[in-house]
């Protein structure tokens, strides 16, 4: 009995020493960014450029989604939460409980392009027509000025920031038809549309490529210039949330993102500069 106790004591000691060795002590300055995969390319490229300038800073960038990012800001496990949607009242309430005061920084603009297969003769749709297609009122292309072909509606998972923005801007929060296909990322939507003749989908402006056709919305082409001008209707702001107005290292980083260099990187990632 005594011996077995001794065995466990020794084991505990071994484990404790092991843990002390494993847990390292960091001297460098750390910054953790987490959240929306839409904002991810911006934070990633800005973080790399920022670390090149400040060798003593270590920035870790993770995806996971807007909800995950904001949840970790509330938990205090990240310094900056990337989000492609504004923070919700419920999340603000939760943050206040934890003594966190979320502060909104607009870091870039994103347009959502409605895309069709390149062989589809439809070049433009009104918001009303887009709504009809997505709610199931129109299920053949000839109902919106196209040829006789079944519409294959492709949507995003209903929790994604892109979906939420699209749902608000184009559908007035009405329900997407239940038989719409669900894809979990911008690339997957573009990929499916490029392979399906009757498909319609929506992606961030940065994901437009020659393999799909972006249609004009209410007569306005989905271009960066039109997003900045504000004439393109399916556009949204991208955010980095911080605890209270940014200070110290967090402020340095946000300032860098908003600097000319940072905004260039955002444009390179397919988004539109704030100014």
């Amino acid at each position, binding site marked *: 009995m005594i*011996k*077995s106790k*001794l*065995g*466990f004591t*020794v*084991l505990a000691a071994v484990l404790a020493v092991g843990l002390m060795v494993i847990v390292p002590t960091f001297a460098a300055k750390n910054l953790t960014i987490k959240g929306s*995969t839409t904002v991810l390319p911006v934070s990633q490229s800005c973080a790399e450029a920022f670390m090149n300038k400040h060798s003593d800073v270590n920035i870790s960038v993770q*995806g*996971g*989604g*807007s*909800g*995950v990012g*904001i*949840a970790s800001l*509330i938990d205090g496990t990240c310094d900056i939460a990337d989000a492609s949607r504004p923070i*919700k009242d*419920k*999340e603000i309430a*939760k943050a206040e409980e934890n003594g966190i005061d979320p502060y909104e920084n607009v870091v870039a603009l994103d347009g959502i392009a409605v895309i069709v297969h390149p062989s589809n003769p439809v070049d433009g749709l009104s918001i009303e027509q887009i709504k009809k297609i997505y709610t199931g009122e129109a299920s053949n292309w000839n109902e919106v000025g196209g040829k006789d072909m*079944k519409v*294959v509606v492709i949507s995003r*998972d*209903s*929790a*994604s*920031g892109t*979906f*939420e923005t699209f749902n608000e801007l184009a559908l007035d*929060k009405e*329900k997407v038809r*239940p*038989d*719409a*296909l*669900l*894809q*979990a990322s911008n690339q*997957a939507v573009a*990929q*499916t549309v490029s*392979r*399906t003749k*009757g*498909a319609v989908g929506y992606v961030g402006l940065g994901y437009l490529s020659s393999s799909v056709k972006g249609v004009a919305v209410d007569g306005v082409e989905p271009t960066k210039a039109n997003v900045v001008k504000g004439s393109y209707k399916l556009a949204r702001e991208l955010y980095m949330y911080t605890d209270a107005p940014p200070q110290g290292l967090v402020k340095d980083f946000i300032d860098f993102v908003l600097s000319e260099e940072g905004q260039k990187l955002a444009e390179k990632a397919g988004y539109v500069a704030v100014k």
Partner: protein
Amino acid sequence: MYRIKEKIYKGIFTLLAFASLVFLVGITLTLFIEGLPVFKEVGFFDFIFGKSWYPTYEPPEFGILPLILGSLWVTFGAVLFCVPIGVGSALFINELAGKRLKAVLKPVIEILAGIPSIVYGFFGMVVVAPFIQRLLGLPVGLTAFTGSLMLGIMATPTVCSISEDALSFVPRSFREASLAVGANRWQTLTKVVFPASASGISTSIILGMSRAVGETMTVLMVTGGAAVIPHTFFQPVRPMTSTIAAEMGEAVMGSSHYHSLFAIGLILFFITLVFNIIAELISRRFRMKLGLGR
């Protein structure tokens, strides 16, 4: 000194042995703690038998019947592919193949099990789905059928490998006795070897099914993801796993949507648990029958 060393080793290995139990309890508890709150908002039966899944709308609807049916649909579809291929190749390897062929075939089939599921998903999305779309003239190739086909291929190694083990466990004396009384090879196979290994083969099928029902990445990529109650094999469906994978990242922590995803996980856990219990019961009977009982 020697005794102490022995005790330390014993302690370490006891700890390791109990580690998986700790994980199991931890995971189950988390599923319950995070999943049950959704039933405060939606009744249990409304959740299971509800026909529409609109978790982020106002007011939200949490009906997972289309998702459960989506999962079962692709799983049973997968059985239609993996049973003939898996059991058939097990029979071939065990009964007909020569030593050299066997030495090649078995590892090759087992390599199939080592291919990451995302690779199956990618292959299904880029090669199989467009092929099925063109072949059958469908509006879109991402269907329950495509998912079943991919899952069937993925479950084949499980079915084949365990079936082959079951066949090889049939004692030599059984075969010899059968041949000795004048039965030919086919009669020996169908009347003696097959019944003797039937429970092992059933176990392999059920384990293959539980692999298929829990598979996530592949179905997320190839089944299209429409949350509707499926009427044919050639329409898009949304299994439970892909719903969790697609929505968990963006669900607001602590919301009913978040809890409902855990509740889906809980139900999925029960489905695979039932599969595994059935498999265990059958394989126990199988060991007894051959006199290999514990």
